[in-house]
């Protein structure tokens, strides 16, 4: 089927008509986060009640993609950002469904389900007033949490596939010019200028050419690509089709992590619909241009997020990177010119085409244009996905949007860039976040994970964590990465166990240099970063472990002991219930004791005690 722009208008109009008959629209977030908090059950139950009450013709209940505030899921939004209810059905499904119905029937706002301010007195009705959302500039995420990701008509009604139509009328060189001038840089890791990449691929000799989307979001702590693929899959497709046209490719691939089944599902449905509507296939919008997209599921290997490894994986081989003396834009997938961009990068493209490169370039900083989606997680109050203009400071992101540190503990560091990045300490909180400033601090943007750490997180343990991750995920091709990271891990493990020696820090730094110099792919080259950045900013913590055999944060099990301060213990018995090995005993309302022989030093009692009665030695 070949679609015309008039038909596009008609579909939009039809959709509008279809929705207009409803008095109310209720959107229930069905992203992975909210689903795990029970949103599917809530959807079913609420839908049943609506039918039972005979309101099915008046109230439209729909499933949307991720709304961002995953911490407070399941999220329910009425109308266009009129009311936001949080944690709906989490404690009492029947009661909360009743409250939703009451809001529908009598416009009564359920105070209980509203988002509350820090002081517990302020209530927020519209999501637009909640600081978490108010500080954002949602462009890529604009339709996430708003549209039904499985309904192509709604995407079209919200302006979808207009950019494609517009692009197909423009000369391919001009499109690449636009992307270049917009200043768009790759959202997946290195921040390479997207337009320049497109240009090289277009100019490369050889046919066919391939368009690839990297949805192998392996950086632990980052989930924006998952949210986009699940919440607005057509935006990714539209960006890729435009890219295909500009570069001169007829075949696209989306490589999705094995751990993201819902994303695969939604993308498959979206592709099927796009084919049916003629956005994929032959003669798209009567332009003579032909394009199709295939989904490729990964196999649970972190290294496959690296461009050449990803391509090997699609070719049906083990996902090992290869040397890039010849760039993948010239010889990539099956030795043919291939243009790989991250999912979020592709989703930016329709916006640039629709609104112009000048608009995109007007957002952000000198070297980093546009907005960036970050996943704000760890010890921050409002965990979730946020989209802000490049250049917002870490402080604004963590304290204004994120609401500060959980339990009002002390901020220690924020980790960005995944296993290739580093930890940034409190003294740099004012730093504007963009590609270049993060690199300057010894970290990197990566795909946008921001993992906030507080005083209860040990930086040596964090270094050990990343090394464990990398030992497991190194593909094993290059000796410096395979063996070197393992040796670094042994040293840090030793330090955490209280057996650190003088000279360990220097030894780690030496290994780091060798790994950086001797590894083929960027993942290997950057593998020492988490260690180097923690040494750089938290050397005193390393010294405390090595010289004093102490873990100041109270994490490294071999160096700590938990005990109860009898004067402070009220005998509330909370710790006895939470203790996984049941090694805390005592009578109710009397001071408890910990059996040191049984204690596994997990710290659960310490984190749960409301009376500060547990001490770490």
């Amino acid at each position, binding site marked *: 089927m070949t679609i015309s722009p008039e038909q596009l208008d008609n579909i939009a109009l039809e959709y509008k008509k279809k929705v207009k008959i409803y008095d109310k629209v209720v959107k229930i977030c069905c992203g992975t986060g909210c689903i795990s908090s029970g949103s599917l059950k809530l959807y079913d139950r609420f839908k049943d009640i609506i039918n039972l009450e005979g309101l099915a013709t008046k109230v439209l209940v729909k499933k949307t993609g991720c709304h961002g505030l995953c911490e407070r899921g399941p999220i329910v939004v009425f109308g266009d950002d009129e009311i936001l209810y949080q944690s709906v059905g989490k404690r009492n499904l029947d009661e909360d469904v009743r409250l939703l119905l009451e809001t529908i029937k009598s416009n009564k706002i359920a105070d209980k389900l509203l988002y509350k301010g820090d002081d517990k007195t302020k209530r927020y009705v519209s999501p637009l007033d909640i600081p978490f959302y108010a500080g954002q500039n949602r462009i890529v995420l604009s339709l996430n949490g708003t549209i039904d990701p499985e309904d192509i008509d709604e995407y079209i009604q919200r302006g979808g596939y207009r950019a494609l139509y517009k692009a197909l009328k423009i000369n391919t060189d001009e499109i690449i010019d636009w992307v270049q001038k917009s200043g768009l840089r790759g959202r997946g890791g290195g921040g390479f200028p997207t337009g320049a990449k497109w240009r090289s691929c277009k100019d490369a000799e050889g046919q066919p050419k391939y368009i690839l989307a990297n949805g192998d979001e392996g950086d632990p702590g980052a989930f924006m690509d998952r949210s986009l693929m699940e919440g607005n899959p057509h935006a990714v497709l539209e960006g890729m089709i435009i890219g295909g046209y500009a570069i001169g490719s007829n075949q696209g691939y989306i490589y999705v992590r094995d751990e993201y089944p819902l994303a695969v599902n939604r993308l498959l449905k979206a592709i099927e619909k796009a084919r049916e509507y003629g956005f994929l296939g032959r003669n798209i919008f009567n332009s003579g241009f032909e394009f199709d997209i295939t989904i490729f599921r990964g196999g649970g290997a972190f290294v496959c997020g690296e461009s050449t490894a990803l391509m090997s994986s699609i070719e049906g081989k083990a996902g090992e990177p290869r040397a890039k003396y010849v760039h993948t834009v010239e010889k990539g997938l099956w030795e043919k010119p291939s243009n790989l961009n991250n999912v979020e990068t592709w989703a930016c493209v329709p916006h640039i085409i629709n609104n112009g490169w000048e608009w995109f370039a007007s957002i952000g900083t000198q070297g980093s244009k546009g907005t960036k989606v970050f996943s704000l997680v760890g010890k921050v109050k409002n965990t979730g996905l946020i989209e802000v203009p490049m250049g917002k400071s870490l402080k604004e992101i963590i304290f204004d949007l994120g609401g500060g540190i959980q339990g009002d503990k002390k901020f220690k560091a924020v980790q960005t860039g995944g296993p290739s990045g580093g930890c940034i300490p409190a003294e740099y909180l004012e730093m504007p976040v963009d590609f270049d400033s993060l690199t300057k601090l010894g970290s990197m943007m990566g795909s946008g994970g921001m993992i906030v750490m507080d005083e209860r997180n040990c930086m040596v343990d964090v270094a050990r964590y990343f090394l464990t991750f990398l030992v497991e995920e190194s*593909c094993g091709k290059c000796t410096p990465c395979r063996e070197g990271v393992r040796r670094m891990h042994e040293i840090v493990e030793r330090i955490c166990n209280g057996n650190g020696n003088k000279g360990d820090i220097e030894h780690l730094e030496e290994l780091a240099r060798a790994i950086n110099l001797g590894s083929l792919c960027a993942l290997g080259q950057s593998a020492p970063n988490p260690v180097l950045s923690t040494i750089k900013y938290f050397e005193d913590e390393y010294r405390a472990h090595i010289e004093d055999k102490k873990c100041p944060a109270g994490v490294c099990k071999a160096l700590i002991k938990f005990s109860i301060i009898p004067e402070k213990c009220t005998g509330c018995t909370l710790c006895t219930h939470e203790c996984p090995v049941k090694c805390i005993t005592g009578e109710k309302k009397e001071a408890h004791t910990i059996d040191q022989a049984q204690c596994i030093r997990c710290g659960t009692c310490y984190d749960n005690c409301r009376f500060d009665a547990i001490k770490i030695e």
Partner: protein
Amino acid sequence: MEVDVGKLNTILNKYGGDKSYILAMFQDIQKEYRYLPKDALKYICDKLSIPFSKGYEVATFYKAISLKPRGKHTIHVCLGTACHLRGGPNILDSFERVLNVKKGDTTGDGMFTLESVNCLGACALAPLVRVDEKDFGKTTSVTVNKIISEFKDGERL
């Protein structure tokens, strides 16, 4: 284990016998048998005309593929950065203790295989546990017992 050649052929045909889809084929076979049986691996390699060693390389490179039989339910404890910071390792410890298996092993009754995973992408709900296709957010050592009993005695059997 006896493998059903008919089923293998269906899977081969689904991908047009294209060897670049070997990983996808393995994933489909695993869905059927809960692991990749050796005979199935051999059969696929033969049909795709690739050496057994190449097929074995792919099967062992990717974590998603298991050459050992797995339990009825697979428990994935997420150890991504956010989960690590919010106590993921303690959750894994609890599962190991309660199920009396080590990470990577299957319980004696064949009910559970315990695995860790390096990020499931629901970091806002750390620490996360995925059992088969169901996610459990903000888990604690107390919920570990609940999760196990839900799958042991619940309607999911």
